[in-house]
């Protein structure tokens, strides 16, 4: 009987957990993340245009950690059985959007890099030619 009890605890969550703790952790955590990103922008380690998505996502975290019922509302609205899964969804969507933005930035950089390389190599050729002519 005792075994069954402990199994139940493992599968259905622990009844005597103080869920206030995770709320504090979440609030402090997302606040720190938000401030961290802001600080990086202030120090010009991240450009403003690339920080917007990060700030937005950490802000969403912050809202969800204050607003306890938020995840229930989201999961109910989307037909998700557990709020934890709703959170996972919000998280992965956020990360996806940021990663896609990264791919865009990288592609743009790669294109410019190619152009620069080509132009620079051509200019170097012309310089060499000119030096040869002057000799």
């Amino acid at each position, binding site marked *: 009987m005792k075994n069954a009890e402990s199994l139940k605890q493992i599968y259905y969550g622990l009844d005597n957990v103080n869920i206030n703790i995770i709320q504090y952790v979440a609030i402090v955590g997302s606040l720190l993340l938000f401030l961290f990103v802001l600080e990086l922008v202030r120090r010009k380690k991240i450009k403003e245009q690339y920080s917007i998505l990060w700030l937005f996502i950490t802000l969403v975290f912050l809202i969800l950690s204050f607003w306890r019922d938020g995840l229930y509302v989201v999961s109910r609205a989307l037909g998700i059985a557990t709020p934890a899964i709703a959170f996972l969804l919000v998280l992965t969507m956020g990360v996806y959007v940021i990663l896609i933005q990264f791919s865009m930035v990288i592609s743009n950089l790669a294109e410019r890099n*190619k152009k620069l390389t*080509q132009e620079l190599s051509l200019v170097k050729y012309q310089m060499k030619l000119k030096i040869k002519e002057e000799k």
Partner: protein
Amino acid sequence: MKLNKILIIVPAFNESKNILNVLSSLKNENSDWDIVVIDDGSTDGTGGLTEQSGLASVVSLIYNLGIGGAVQTGFKFAKMNGYDIAVQFDGDGQHLAGEIPKILQPVLDGTADVVIGSRFLGKNAGWKSTYFRRLGIRIFYIINSVLINQKITDNTSGFRAYNKKAISFLAENYPTDYPEPEAVILLGRNGFTIREIFTLMKKREGGKSSIYGIKSVYYMLKVLLAIFLTTVRPKIKGD
């Protein structure tokens, strides 16, 4: 009549074994042609060797850009120096200098903007390849022919001639990675007339094809995706 300025663009990556033979065969064919070798960041001294030989101008890319980026540098060079016609000619010895006049003719006549030297036109028994390579080439043939309504049998051929209009267009827009089949679509979609002429080609002398194994699967997927997306993109406005 004004004489056409003709440039032979030779992209080369680590071709120190072949490059001088290739260049002298070009010079022997017609000494009026200007040649530019685009040394794509070679590490075997291809660029230096070519420069010393005095057979061609050498543009050395400061790092390896891949065939697309290298060939495009050639187009930029041609545009910058006011060439009327450019011929793309591989540095590995598989193209034959003696075949160049054949692909030049339609451009000189003004019957085509772009001419592709094809291994497959007509009943060509001179060129054999693996089953998968032929299958891939066949797929490109069908797709490209449908999409641009021009029959192109040899989409992967890098033996091509371009007129001034095409040079100027490609100097600004040229695909990277595996550019040949994509370039066909790009040109066709933007209203260029493409013609194919049967040309002989040699089997490669040294080295392996750059595309084999798992890379060939990636190659097919990448190129097919690029071809599809080039088709749905709007036409590029010229300058």
